[in-house]
């Protein structure tokens, strides 16, 4: 992965973390907040083929900023996102992310696993959190599709 691309991703995840912790917090529902960093991480992992290096860079950057704005020891979320990346790679080999239903299944499973992994640390599991983030993930999927279509339109 090029250094410029890594730098863009660094800034992107930094801004996403700020949005998640300061803006989207006002859209929390029954103590379930939108985990924007996780949802964009999933979108970037599944929207095209990523090699191990790219995937690890994504996981480290996403985890780094969650670690910065966390109360746990540093590195915990980097580790969690690396585990998620390997799991997502395994799932992607079995389920196609090219169609909407496949993407939905992958999105749901990744969010579920993230919450289960977090349960090992916090001993608290909220299924509503999974559902709320799943719905938010679908909205983000359609927004990304719309941006892609617009980009194609301008490119012509």
């Amino acid at each position, binding site marked *: 992965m090029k250094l410029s691309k890594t730098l863009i991703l660094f800034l992107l995840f930094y801004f996403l973390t700020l949005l998640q912790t300061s803006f989207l*917090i006002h859209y929390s529902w029954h103590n379930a907040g939108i985990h924007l960093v996780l949802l964009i991480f999933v979108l970037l992992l599944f929207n095209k083929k990523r090699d191990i290096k790219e995937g690890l860079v994504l996981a480290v950057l996403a985890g780094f900023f969650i670690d910065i*704005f*966390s*109360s746990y020891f540093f590195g915990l979320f980097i580790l969690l996102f690396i585990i998620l990346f390997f799991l997502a790679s395994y799932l992607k080999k079995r389920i196609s992310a090219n169609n909407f239903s496949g993407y939905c299944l992958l999105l749901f499973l990744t969010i579920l696993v993230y919450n289960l992994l977090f349960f090992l640390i916090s001993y608290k599991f909220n299924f509503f959190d999974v559902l709320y983030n799943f719905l938010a993930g679908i909205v983000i999927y359609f927004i990304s599709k719309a941006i892609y279509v617009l980009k194609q339109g301008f490119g012509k």
Partner: protein
Amino acid sequence: MIRKKDKNRIIVSSLVLVVVILVLIFQTPVRSFFYTISEPIQQSLWQKGKNSSDFFNGLFSFSALTRENEFLGQENRELLSKIVEIDSLRKENEELRAALNLGLADDYKIIEARVFSVNLEQDFVLVNKGKQDGIKKGMPIIDFHNILIGRVEQVYTNQSKVFLISNKDVKFSVGIEGETINGLAKGKGKGEVFLDLVPKEEKLVSGALITTAGLEENFPQGLLIGRIGDIERTDLAPFQKANIELLLDVSKQNNLLIILAQ
């Protein structure tokens, strides 16, 4: 002989390793640095988020607001009668305070702080007051109506990390308003708090008001917590438990007060 590509890999890997180790050693200053540069952006995002969510809430909850208005009207009438009763008690209290030479403003030494970041998963908020403002670990945080929000967990140069009362690491002694019952309030995580260690013989009533008992060094007595929710009582356990329904969503407060000293 090491190839140029391998040499580059070794250099990059070593650099990453050095950065990781440095971040691990200096995690407090690293966090402090990011909080300082992010705070102005987060303050602005916070306000925009609040304004937009207030707008959408207003749009979607018109019928709910009408019902709430009726309910509040009824509650208002009940409260008016209580105000009359409290007014006479207040006068009596003022006379006693004057007699004891105590001023209400001297109750606590406080400082106002603004919230700019919330972590719902881990039940903490970041506020814009830190070491330079005299903040110390363990100081309690309240809102403007004496409702306990949490306590300072980590102090940075200009910011502090505040654990909400729903955080699993937060526990403190509480009492039931108007009763002699004491217990322990414990954070459950994800915005929930429960009451524990109340002897089985004591009679807990749903809806009773819970306040701090003031047995801890930093926590003053009489700060509001919430009301007793579902009560859990079994013959086998020596103590009974109850959910605490918090009086407000502690994670959505803009401005808070940090109690510096009592």
